C-alpha cells in the first residue's frame, strides 16, 4: 500500500507540473500586450517597455515560467498585475465560495442519486424507466439555464431567496444557507441525473452476480441483501462517478457563479483571463488542479482500500 501511495503521489506531481507548464505557454501566446492594458491607452512606449521589464515579460517564455514555478514551489504565487492584490489572498477569499456550493451540491447529489439509482435498479420496470427519463432530461438542461429559471421563480416572483450574492457561513449561517440554496439546486439537478444512472447501472450489475443469488437463496432479507452487500459492492463505481461529478461541478460552478454573481473561483478566473492577469490565472489554475489531483488521489486510495485488486492499476 505504501508503494502504491508513493507512486500515486509522484504521478500527481508530474501531472501538476505538466498542467502548469502547458497553461503558461498557452496564456503567454495570448496576452503579449498586457502592459499596455495595465497602463492605459495613453501610456508612452517607454512606459510600456519599462512595465514589460518590471513584469519580466521581456524574458523568454521558459525563464518566465521557471521564475513563476520557483516562486510557486515556495508558496509565493505573486500579485495580480492589475490590482496588486496577493494571488494567495484573492484565492483564499474566493475558494470558500466555490467549495461551499460544490461540496454541499455533491453531498445532496450523493444522497439523491444513490437513493434514485438503487430504487430504479431494484424496482426496475416502469419506475426504472421514469428515473432514466428524468435523468436524461436533467442532464440535458444546461445548469445556467436552470439557475436562471430558479432565480426568476424563487427570487424575483416569490422573493424567497436572494437572486445574487454569497453570505459567508461564519457571518450568518442562515444567510449562508439562503444564499447557496438556488446555486446548489441548479448544480444538483444536473449532477443527480448522471450519477443516478451510474449507480443504477452498477447496482444492476452487482445484483445479477451469482453471490447475490446465493445470498437470496440462503434466505437473507432483501433489504439486507441490497444495503449490506449489493450497494457496498457497487460503491467503487459510485465513488468514481461522484468524484468525477465533483470535478465537473467545479467547472460547472463557473457558469453558476456568473448567473448568481457569486464571488468564487470561476468569477476570479474569468475576470483574470479577460484581462490577461497571468499570476491570478496561474494561481486559480494550480488551485483547481490541486483540488482535482487530491480528489483523484483520494478516490484511488479509497478504491484501493475497498478493493485490493485496484492497487495493481
Amino acid at each position: 500500500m505504501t508503494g502504491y501511495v508513493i507512486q500515486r503521489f509522484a504521478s500527481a506531481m508530474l501531472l501538476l507540473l505538466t498542467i502548469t507548464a502547458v497553461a503558461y505557454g498557452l496564456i503567454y501566446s495570448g496576452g503579449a500586450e498586457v502592459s499596455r492594458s495595465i497602463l492605459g491607452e495613453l501610456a508612452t512606449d517607454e512606459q510600456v517597455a519599462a512595465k514589460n521589464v518590471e513584469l519580466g515579460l521581456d524574458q523568454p517564455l521558459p525563464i518566465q515560467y521557471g521564475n513563476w514555478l520557483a516562486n510557486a514551489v515556495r508558496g509565493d504565487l505573486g500579485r495580480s498585475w492589475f490590482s496588486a492584490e496577493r494571488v494567495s489572498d484573492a484565492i483564499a477569499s474566493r475558494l470558500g465560495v466555490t467549495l461551499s456550493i460544490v461540496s454541499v451540491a455533491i453531498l445532496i447529489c450523493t444522497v439523491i442519486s444513490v437513493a434514485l439509482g438503487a430504487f430504479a435498479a431494484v424496482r426496475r420496470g416502469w419506475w426504472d424507466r421514469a428515473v432514466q427519463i428524468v435523468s436524461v432530461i436533467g442532464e440535458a438542461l444546461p445548469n445556467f439555464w436552470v439557475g436562471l429559471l430558479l432565480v426568476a421563480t424563487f427570487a424575483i416572483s416569490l422573493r424567497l431567496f436572494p437572486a445574487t450574492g454569497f453570505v459567508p457561513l461564519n457571518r450568518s449561517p442562515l444567510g449562508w444557507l439562503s444564499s447557496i440554496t438556488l446555486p446548489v439546486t441548479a448544480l444538483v439537478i444536473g449532477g443527480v441525473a448522471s450519477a443516478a444512472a451510474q449507480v443504477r447501472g452498477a447496482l444492476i450489475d452487482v445484483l445479477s452476480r451469482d453471490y447475490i443469488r446465493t445470498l437470496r437463496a440462503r434466505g437473507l432479507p432483501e433489504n439486507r441483501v441490497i444495503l449490506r452487500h449489493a450497494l457496498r459492492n457497487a460503491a467503487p463505481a459510485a465513488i468514481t462517478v461522484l468524484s468525477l461529478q465533483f470535478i465537473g461541478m467545479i467547472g460547472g460552478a463557473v457558469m453558476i457563479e456568473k448567473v448568481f454573481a457569486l464571488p468564487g473561483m470561476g468569477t476570479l478566473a474569468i475576470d483574470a483571463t479577460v484581462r490577461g492577469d497571468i499570476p491570478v490565472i496561474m494561481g486559480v489554475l494550480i488551485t483547481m488542479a490541486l483540488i482535482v489531483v487530491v480528489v483523484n488521489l483520494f478516490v484511488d486510495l479509497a478504491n484501493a482500500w475497498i478493493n485490493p485488486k485496484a492497487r495493481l492499476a
Partner: protein
Amino acid sequence: MTITLSWAGRPTLRRATLALSFMGMLTAGVSAETLTLAVALDNGSFDPAIVENGPRAQYWAAVYDTLLLMEPDGSIVGNLAESYAYNEDNTVLTLKLRQDVKFTDGAPFNAEAVKANVEHLRGGTGQNSFMVGAVTDIVIVDDFTVELHLSAANPAQLTYLTMAGGVMGSPAALGTEEIISVPVGSGPYMLDVANTTKGAQYSFVRNPDYWNAEAFPYDAVVLIPMGEITARMNALRSGQVDGAQGNAQTAAEAEASGLSVNRTPIDRHGLILADREGALVPALGDVRVRQAINHAIDGEGLLAAIQRNLGHHTTQVFNLNSVAYVPELDDRYPFDPEKAKALLAEAGYANGFDLTLPENPTVPANPIITQQLADVGIRVIWDKVVSENYVTEAQSKRYGAFWMSLSTGNPWWDMTKQISASGPWNPFDSATPELDALLAKAQAASGDEYTALMREVNTYVTENAWFDIWYQADAVYFAAPDVKVTMHPQNVVPYIRHFAPATE
C-alpha cells in the same frame, strides 16, 4: 427593502414564505438609508494613483473627494479646491483650497497634500497618470493655495481634476501597502472593513467629519461587483440592489419591470479610416473614397438594429454635449449608396477595391458592414483576430481601417486619443499643416475662441472623412423607482453623489 407577498397561499405556506423572506432580508442587509449598487467590474486598487474612471469610479467616489467637480451639465466647479484660475496663457493653474477638510486618518488637507498627490499620480504607473502628465511644477504659495505649472496649456486639465486625476488621498497613506485595499481619503464615506470582502462586497459608512454631507443623502453605501448583466438585472428586479449599469439590449425589459432607465451619450461607434495617406491601402489615401465609405454605411440603421435606438445618429467623434459638437455636421453623410459609387468612380475606383479589416467577433455590425460596402463595390476581407488582442491589432498599422468604439467626453481629451498625431487611435500618425495649426491655436485658447476652434477641428476631420462614425451610443443605467439618478455627463456610470432618494 420592501417585501410584498403577492400570493395568498395556505397559512402555513404563507408563514414559511415570510420566514424565508426574512432570511432573504438578512442576507441582503438593505435598509432605507443604504444605497446598494451593483458594479459591472470589481474594484482594482484603492491607491489614488491606480484608481480608474468608468464603472470603477463608483468605488473611489465613495471615499475620495476630487479637487474639482463636474456638474451634470458638464460645467466645472470647485470642490476641495474652492476656486481655480488660469494665468494669461493657461499654463499656470492656481487652486484655492478649502480650509476645513481633514483626511480620515486625521491628516489635514492642504497645499502639501495636493503636491504629494499630484506627484504620486504623476510618478506612478496608473492608467490615469497622464491626467497630471502636463504638470511640471507644483508650487505651494501658502498653506491653502497651490499652483500647477503646466508644460503647455491643456484644455482638458480641469476635466481631469474632476475625475481620477483629481483624487486626493492622505499623504501619509500614499505609497503604502495598506491603501491598496483600505482607502484613506477625505470623501463622504469610509470603507467599513469588517463588512467588506474583496470581490464580493464593499461596504461604506459615513465619514463623520465630511464637510459636504448634505450632498450625500445615504447613510451607508454598499457596492457589489456583478459582471453579468443577467445577474445585475436579477438583483435589481428582486430588490437586492438599487442601481446597476444596464445596456441597450436589456433596457426594454428593465422598463417593463418598473425600473428607471437613465441615459447619456457616451460611446461613439464606427470605423477609423486610419490610412489617410494611402500607405497600406492606396484607395484610402483619396478623401473621396473615405467619404464614399461614410455614404455607404447606414449609421441610422445600425443604431436601430444594434443599439435599439438608445443613442444618437452622428458623423462626429465628439460628444453630443461637448463644445466641439456641430449639429449640422450630422447631415453631412446621409446613407446614399449611389453617391458612394459616384465618389468611388470619381476617385478611379469604379470597380471598387479590396479592404482588409480586423474582425472582432464581438461586433454585431460586421456582416452589415460587409454587405453595405459590397453594395458599392468595396470587398471586405476579414482577418480573424482574438478579441483580447483586438486593440493591439487595430493599432498595429497592419490595417488601413478598423472598427472601434471609444468613449467621448472632454473634446481635448478625445482629440488627444484619436486626432493628435501621437494619439493611440491615430496609428498612421496622420497630420496636416492645416490641422496642426488649428490644434495649436485651440490648445492655447479658451472660452468662445476655443469653442470655435474645436468646431473647426471637428469640421476638418469630418469633412476629410478621417472616420466613418455611425452613432453615439447611450450609457444606460437602471435604478429602482425609489432612487433618483442623475447621469454623469462623461462617465459610463453615475458617481455616488448622483444618487438620491426619489421624492414624490
